[in-house]
C-alpha cells in the first residue's frame, strides 16, 4: 500500500512540476488523437447520417458490418496498416512507418466505424416529425438535413467524444505503427507500458492521472453543454 501511495504522490508532484518529458508525451498523444478524431468525424458523421437518413440498398448489411467493426482489435488494425506502409508494402516508399501520420491513419480506421455507427443511432433516434415539420415550413433538402442534425447533435457529440476516448486510450496501433519513439511517437499509453516494463511506476501513474483527468474533463464539458441546452 505504501508503495502505491509513494508512487501516487510522486506522480502528482511530477504532474504539478510540468515535467517536460511528460508534457511532450501528452502533446504527442493529444495531437495524434485529435487529428484522427477530426478526420474520422469528417467522414463518419456524414456517412452515418447518409445511412440513417437515406434509403440505401443493403442498409441493414452495412449497419451489421459497422457494428462488427466496432469490436475490431487495435492490433489487427496495426497489423493491417503495417502491411501497407512497411518497406515491402505498396505505400512503403512514402516512409510512413513509425511516424505520427501512421498512428493517425491507424486510429482513424479504428474509430470511423464507431462514429458512423453511433451517428446512425443518434440520427435514427431523431423524431421523424422534425423532418416533416421542416419540410412543411418550407425547408429544402439541405435545410431539412441541418434540422435533423441539430436535433441529433448531442448523440453525435457523444459519438465523437467516445471515439476520442477510444483513440486516446488505445495502445496497439500506437505501439505497432508509431514504434514508441521518445519525443516523436511516444504517447501516454505506450509510455505507460514502457515504464511498467522498466518497473518505474511514477511516470506511468502520472500519465494515468492525466489520461483520467482528460477523460473526466471531456465528459464534464459534454454534460454541461447538454444540460444548458435542456434548460
Amino acid at each position, binding site marked *: 500500500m505504501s508503495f502505491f501511495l509513494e508512487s501516487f504522490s510522486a506522480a502528482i508532484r511530477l504532474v504539478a512540476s510540468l515535467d517536460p518529458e511528460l508534457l511532450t508525451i501528452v502533446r504527442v498523444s493529444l495531437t495524434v488523437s485529435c487529428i484522427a478524431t477530426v478526420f474520422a468525424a469528417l467522414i463518419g458523421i456524414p456517412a452515418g447520417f447518409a445511412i440513417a437518413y437515406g434509403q440505401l440498398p443493403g442498409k441493414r448489411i452495412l449497419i451489421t458490418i459497422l457494428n462488427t467493426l466496432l469490436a475490431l482489435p487495435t492490433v489487427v488494425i496495426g497489423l493491417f496498416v503495417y502491411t501497407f506502409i512497411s518497406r515491402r508494402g505498396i505505400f512503403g516508399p512514402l516512409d510512413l512507418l513509425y511516424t505520427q501520420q501512421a498512428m493517425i491513419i491507424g486510429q482513424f480506421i479504428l474509430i470511423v466505424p464507431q462514429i458512423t455507427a453511433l451517428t446512425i443511432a443518434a440520427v435514427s433516434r431523431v*423524431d421523424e*416529425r*422534425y423532418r*416533416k*415539420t*421542416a*419540410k*412543411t*415550413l*418550407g*425547408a*429544402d*433538402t439541405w*435545410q431539412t438535413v441541418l*434540422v435533423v442534425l*441539430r*436535433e441529433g447533435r448531442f448523440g453525435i457529440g457523444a459519438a465523437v467524444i467516445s471515439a476520442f476516448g477510444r483513440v486516446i486510450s488505445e495502445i496497439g496501433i500506437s505501439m505497432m505503427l508509431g514504434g514508441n519513439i521518445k519525443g516523436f511517437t511516444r504517447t501516454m499509453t505506450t509510455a505507460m507500458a514502457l515504464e511498467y516494463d522498466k518497473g518505474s511506476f511514477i511516470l506511468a501513474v502520472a500519465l494515468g492521472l492525466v489520461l483520467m483527468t482528460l477523460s473526466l474533463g471531456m465528459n464534464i464539458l459534454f454534460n454541461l453543454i447538454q444540460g444548458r*441546452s435542456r*434548460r
Partner: protein
Amino acid sequence: MILYTLSQITQRYGKRTVLDIDHLEIEAGRIYALLGPNGAGKTTLLNILGFLEMPTTGRMTFNGQPVEASRTAILHLRRQVVLVDQHPIMFSTTVCSNIEFGLKIREMGKADRQRTVDEVLDTVGLRQFKFAAAHELSGGETQRLALARALALAPRVLLCDEPTASVDAENQAVISVLLQQINVTRGTTIIFTTHDRLQAAALAQQTLVLENGRRAATTYENSFAGTLIPGDNGQLHCTLHGKVQIPISTPQPGCRPIRSGRIYIDPEKITLSRTADQQEPGRDVTGTIMLIMAEGEKIRVVVNIGVLMVVLMDRASYQHHCPAIGATVTLRFAANALTLLDACDPPS
C-alpha cells in the same frame, strides 16, 4: 375559385391502396372538414394536399396549374401550404426561434421577423412565452404555437390534422375560434381532419367524408361496423358492433345472405316517435335521447340504442313528437335507410 383539383388520385404503400379518390375540388377561402374513421386515409390526403407526399397515380392541380413532381416545383408549392400535425413537434429551441424558422428560410429581414413573431404570438395568446423553451409548453400551448408557426408564414392553405384531438376543452375552444378567425381575417383556406361530426358541423363550410381511402357519400355519422343477417318474413337484421340489432323490413337488393362490413344508416331515413305511440315489436328499436340540436332546417337528435344513433328530423315532425332529452323513444328504419359500404365475408 378552385384551389385544388384532384383526379383519379391513388396512394399505395406496397400493395396496399390507402387512398383512392376519383375527383375532389377544394375552393379557395373556405373551411373544409375531413371526416372519417381511423385508417380512412385522412392524414394521407392531407400529406398529398401539403405536397409532402406525391400520389402514386392521378392528376392534381393547384391554383389552376398542374402539380409537377420536380423538386423545385414542389418546394415552391410547399411554401404556400403549411400542415399542422396532430401532435406537433417543436424544435429544441425557444418559442421565438421556432416561429422564425420558416421566416429565415424565406430570407425575411430581422426586424420584419420580430414584428411577425410578435403579431402571431398575440394572435394565439402566447406573447408571454416568446423567449421560453418551446419544449416546456403544455399540449394545448404547443398546439397554439404550432398554429402561430404556421400563421407566421401567411400560407394560402392551412392543413390541420386533428387540431383539437389532444388538447383540453379550453384549448379546443381557443383553437376552434382561432381557425375561424384566420379564415375570416386572412382568407386562408383551412382543411382539417376530425372524428367529431359536431366540430365539423360547427367549424366547416363543407364536410368531406372518407371511408377506406374513398370519398363516401355519407355524412360520416351513423357509420358502424356491422353484419347483415337475413331473418324470417323477408326481414333483414343488422347487428351493429356485434351488440345492437336493428330490424329492416325488406332486404337490400343484391345482398348476399350474410355480409359484414361498414354499415351506414341514413339519419334522414329513421323515424322517431314516442314510446307511447303505436309500437310494433320486431320492427322498432327503443332508446334514450341524449342530445338535441338545431342544424339549419333540420333538428339533430342523438339517441342511445346501445350505440349513438343520429336522427335528422324536419321541424314539423319535431314539433309533432316534441322529443326531450332523457325521454325514451322508438326508432323505425326505412327499407332503404341502410347501405353496406365495404362488404366482406364474415369471420367464420
